[in-house]
């Protein structure tokens, strides 16, 4: 088992560009799909990661987003519904050198793959997971998903859905994720740094990406995605900075007891000093959980950025360390001795 860190591109090697990461396959998503932008941003940052293309693996489950690996000129595996985290775990464990990216959607990760999602988060492999959340099943033509709002009318719920949606950020935090972030498909200026931060984080990195399904759930994230709305409906999380937002930068988030609330910082009642100051490195998840809950609260802006980024040991490192220690204390495995272990007798 190799134990060296993800190898870097040697000095003097030919420069790779965004074009090198485009596969020869035609991209087949619907016109206007948010996936196009996520693919473009991902291809854009890849040459900047400083690792050889052959060490990158994209693994997906099933759904529109899961076509993604076919369009990346890296190693890729389009697997089965919900199971990408398990296959990614095996890929990473067998070769910790690889940079492993899981591409998933709200149905894939949170419905059929919900169990694997929470366990991937807690094991903390150094794997990046991008969840394209469009709050609908696209590939199967528009049934409600586990992130659809309650009351969602679809072909499978003509009278409105009755189940309560998941909050992917809350779920990731509750599962012990060490890096949790949110971004938006078409906001390249935000998504690219988030992708790079996810790569830089050692441990499982989770990004929920608000993604628009133009066909079955158009404008579900209109308030948080469109230029004219998002300043008043999103708040950028920046470590060490107070939570200020609004087109006029005149609003902020303050904690009222256990409840985050929006306050006006210009009317004299509150000032910037009253606002929550973001601490993405806090080990304790209380603040991150408050922030995550904002998107479940009507009329609150949705936080964008890194909710949490803490350093915990990675599964693959703990496992390789067990192997190393065992080899040090017992010696490299001697097969002949192993087969002949225990009580034996000889017949001559």
């Amino acid at each position, binding site marked *: *088992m190799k134990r060296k860190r993800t190898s870097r591109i040697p000095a003097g090697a030919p420069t790779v560009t965004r074009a090198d990461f485009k596969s020869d396959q035609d991209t087949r998503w619907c016109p206007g799909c948010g996936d196009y932008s996520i693919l473009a941003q991902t291809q854009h940052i890849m040459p900047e990661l400083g690792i050889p293309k052959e060490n990158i693996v994209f693994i997906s489950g099933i759904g529109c987003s899961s076509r993604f690996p076919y369009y990346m000129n890296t190693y890729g595996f389009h697997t089965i519904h919900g199971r990408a985290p398990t*296959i990614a775990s095996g890929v990473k464990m*067998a*070769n910790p050198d690889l940079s492993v990216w899981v591409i998933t959607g709200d149905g894939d990760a949170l419905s059929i793959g919900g169990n694997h999602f929470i366990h991937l988060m807690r094991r903390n492999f150094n794997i990046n997971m991008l969840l394209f959340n469009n709050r609908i099943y696209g590939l199967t033509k528009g049934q409600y998903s586990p992130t659809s709002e309650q009351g969602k009318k679809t072909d499978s719920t003509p009278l409105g859905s009755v189940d309560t949606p998941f909050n992917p950020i809350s779920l990731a935090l509750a599962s012990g994720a060490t890096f949790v972030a949110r971004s938006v498909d078409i906001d390249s200026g935000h998504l690219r740094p988030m992708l790079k931060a996810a790569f830089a984080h050692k441990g499982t990195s989770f990004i929920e990406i608000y993604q628009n399904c133009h066909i079955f759930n158009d404008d579900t994230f209109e308030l948080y995605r469109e230029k004219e709305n998002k300043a008043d409906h999103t708040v950028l999380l920046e470590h060490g900075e107070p939570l200020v937002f609004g087109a006029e930068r005149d609003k902020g988030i303050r904690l009222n007891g256990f409840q985050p609330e929006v306050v006006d910082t210009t009317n004299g009642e509150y000032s910037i000093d009253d606002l929550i100051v973001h601490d993405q490195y806090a080990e304790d998840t209380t603040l991150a959980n408050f922030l995550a809950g904002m998107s479940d609260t009507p009329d609150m802006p949705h936080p964008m950025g890194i909710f949490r980024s803490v350093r915990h040991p990675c599964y693959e490192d703990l496992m390789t360390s067990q192997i190393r220690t065992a080899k040090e204390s017992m010696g490299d495995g001697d097969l002949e001795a192993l087969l002949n272990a225990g009580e034996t007798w000889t017949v001559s």
Partner: protein
Amino acid sequence: MRKPVEQIEEATILFAGDSGDGSQTIGTQMTETTALIGNDVATLPDYPAEIRAPAGSLAGVSGFQLHFSSEQIHTPGDLCDVLVAMNPAALKVHLNKLKPNGILIVNVDNFARRNLRLAGYESNPLEDDTLTKYQVFQVELTQLTRKSLETTDLTTGEIDRCKNFFALGMILWFYNRPMEYTMKWIKVKFAKRPEYIESNILALRAGNTYCEATEQFAVSYDVKPATFEPGTYRNIEGNMATVLGLVAASHQSGLPLVYGSYPITPASDILHGLAQYRNFGVVTMQMEDEIAAVGVAIGAAFSGALGVTGSSGPGLALKSEAINLAMIAELPIVVCNIQRAGPSTGMPTKTEQSDLLQMFYGRNGESPIPIIAPSRPYDCFETIYEACHIAIKYRTPVIFLSDLYIGMGAEPWKIPQLSELPEIRANFAVSADTNNGFEPYLRDPETLARPWAKPGTPGLEHRIGGLEKSDVTGHVSYDTENHEKMVEIRAEKVARIADDIPPTEVFGAQEGEILLLGWGGTYGAIRTAVENCTAEGLPIGHVHLRHLNPFPNDLGDILNRFKKILIPELNSGQLRQLIRSTYLINAIGFNKVQGQPFHVFELHSKIDEILKDIGHP
């Protein structure tokens, strides 16, 4: 003066008691000692699914049967010469397994009214005529153990837990076996509790001395060592042989082993076993469910490791979609199914062979997967090694179809030399050999295997997945004719494995009246029955299949050499269906679905019936 010793050829003993009574422990110890002094031995643990069913209840009875001999043997024995019953429930459950005039040792201290009632005895069988046809030895096992340990500082509860070793001491005396191996084991087992070393050894000796001293036992027995081929031997359970075979395949192929699993009876021992071998680079991952367990094996295979997962029937049901992914992606993984009695949760601690058709057909679409089955505990080593070999050579998932009876049974194993193990070569793709760049579905013309290009190899970046792929290029394809072609290629690839199968061994008659065709854990009973028939000069043969998919190339010819094909199976006739449809012959079934192995006498009566039907003199 030493009491007389009578020479006998073989013996079968059954230890039975509450599941907390330690029957499995003393059964295993008796097995170890018996193997070490050179007898051939075969065992059958039989225990309840409940860890501790209510004390004294019928549901809580745990048994361990062992058969040892001065001849080669293949089964744990039909009926027992000795039954050690630690309580009335154990007596009730197992008395029908004791031979007429067999020796029955009971712990009379446990035959109080409450225990009798729990076992469903209206009156005390020790006092009525229930046991008249047996030699009954009533031993105050609990009192005697307490008395022999009265000088220790242990509590009565702790002392009572030593009584299984008192019983073992008795049986070791009975069959003239040394106590030293058990003492050595006790010292290792209780290294951290010296007071338990002392007490268990005291109890063991006390049981032994008791037999020498008491007038109840007039003679003891001895079974001379069996004749084995020259070599070094150890006693091995099937699941442990599976573990060693996997480690050996990893070691010999140079591929790190990644074993994904989820706890399930009776496969968990493979996970436990492999977890001990980190110094061989073995990675064991206990995952959140069965699907995740096969998922990591598939991921590991994609990364270029030896990916393996193991479970039992219900777990295999959960894994089936992922196994199909490995099939269409043509990645080498090995899937172990240690069968138990189904359907559904079924009887988790009982054996059965009822997953064969599930393994053949339990996946959507046309999904050919090689299936190979070990025939006896030590055979698990060679069979799982071969499973790894086939998987890697042909880039395919392979199903290793074992069962509880083999997995938990034990017998002596002639340890192989490393030089005897076939070479396993991964042959990773290292460069794109065509002008079109790397083509992940450009096949080896002989094996039809596709290249195994692991991530990290420059220039071989490619994408695979569960969608149908275009021949050669591996691009996603909805082309109708390509799909049919790929279905045929995948089937042909598996069919070609038959060319690697050595000629089938026919035991006994090479042609004649009846061929017994078996697979898996029924080997021992079938072989014993056919040996007996052959000794009587009957024209009866035995073929035991390791390769179930594909079948050996010569099987059809062999089947045609016999008038009748009898297929004994611990299911309702699954191999029979396959044989009938493949070879269009009217194979006869002999089927038992009771969670228990065949008795040899059951096979004899079926053989006799067929011989009579066909008018064999």
